[in-house]
């Protein structure tokens, strides 16, 4: 399918350095689970089309996806968004796939329409790095029900209040934790910020 060039969203201003900065922020987010990381600094220039995109996709998710993906990382979108998939195909040459289990990166627009977590690649014992990384859009990173997170990267425990996550998600995820080193890493994204949830973190669901 041809990319509609007239509505294509511009990418980073400085592709190399901006994607390095975004990559660094994403590393920080996963190494300190639960901390809110802003990646505003590296977002594309102010632009009418960018604002149109921001109304549909959090810019932090957009910047992360164009920084992380390339021709070898299929991306799956739970709700097909031509604007986002065109931008990914043009700026990152990333293939957009229709198969959940072959995606390296997944963008989930609406938590309510979330498929079961085991629909995505978990990696296997020899190649746990083949697991999918999920970008999940949430309404807020700090106004939800507080839950206790523990694990590597958290000194003792940390209370994280991400909004809009159904209980079933935490239960499914708890079932996957036993499969370590396989498992799924998630980022919860709202606007220009995100919170990382690596596969090693235990979330206590009371």
């Amino acid at each position, binding site marked *: 399918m*041809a*990319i*509609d*060039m*007239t509505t*294509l969203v*511009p*990418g980073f201003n400085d*592709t190399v350095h901006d994607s390095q900065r975004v990559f660094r922020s994403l590393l920080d987010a996963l190494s300190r689970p639960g901390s809110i990381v802003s990646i505003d600094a590296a977002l594309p220039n102010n*632009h009418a089309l960018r604002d149109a995109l921001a109304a549909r996709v959090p810019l932090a998710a957009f910047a992360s996806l164009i920084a992380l993906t390339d021709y070898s990382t299929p991306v799956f979108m739970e709700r097909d968004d031509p604007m986002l998939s065109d931008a990914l195909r*043009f*700026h990152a040459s990333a293939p957009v796939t229709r198969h959940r289990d072959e995606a390296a990166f997944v963008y989930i627009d609406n938590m309510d329409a979330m498929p079961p977590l085991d629909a995505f690649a978990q990696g296997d014992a020899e190649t746990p790095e083949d697991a999918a990384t999920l970008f999940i859009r949430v309404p807020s990173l700090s106004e939800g029900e507080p839950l206790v997170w523990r694990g590597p990267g958290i000194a003792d425990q940390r209370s994280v209040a991400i909004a809009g996550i159904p209980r079933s998600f935490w239960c499914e995820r708890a079932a996957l934790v036993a499969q370590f080193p396989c498992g799924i890493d998630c980022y919860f994204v709202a606007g220009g910020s995100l919170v990382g949830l690596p596969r090693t973190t235990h979330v206590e669901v009371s």
Partner: protein
Amino acid sequence: MSTSPEPDVAASSTARRQWMAVLARTPRDALKAAFDAALEGASAPAYDWLRAPDIGLAMVRGRIGGTGDAFNVGEVTVTRATLRLKADEGSTSVGVAVHMGRDKERATLAALADALLQTPRYADRLQALLIEPLEARIAEERRRKEAEAASTRVEFFTMVRGE
């Protein structure tokens, strides 16, 4: 790519292919001089980068004498750029340039020329002042090389005896 507003897509894409071939074969100085002349001192229209000029490698493949399997001849450096004119220039046409070499300024000029050639406002002027002279220049250069090669040509023939 659905970039061109013209109704006749097939004809416009052939024309576009022709001018892109001309732009890709023109050295930077000639391109810049012809472009400045075509704009007649007016400043170049505003545009956004969709892909700022970047340099990469492409594998060139070929076959000898047009027969046999294709093999990898070698890698060449390639510069590519994509830009889109701002809407207040009357059209949001998209210009693309992919060139051999590492000259980002040349890729910028060629992408801008490609975008402007798709706008009704600039198309005729650029076609007459930019593409046609450059095309003539390339044809002239090719004729010169052919003449040079022709002077060293060796004709092989077989004498037939005893008829």
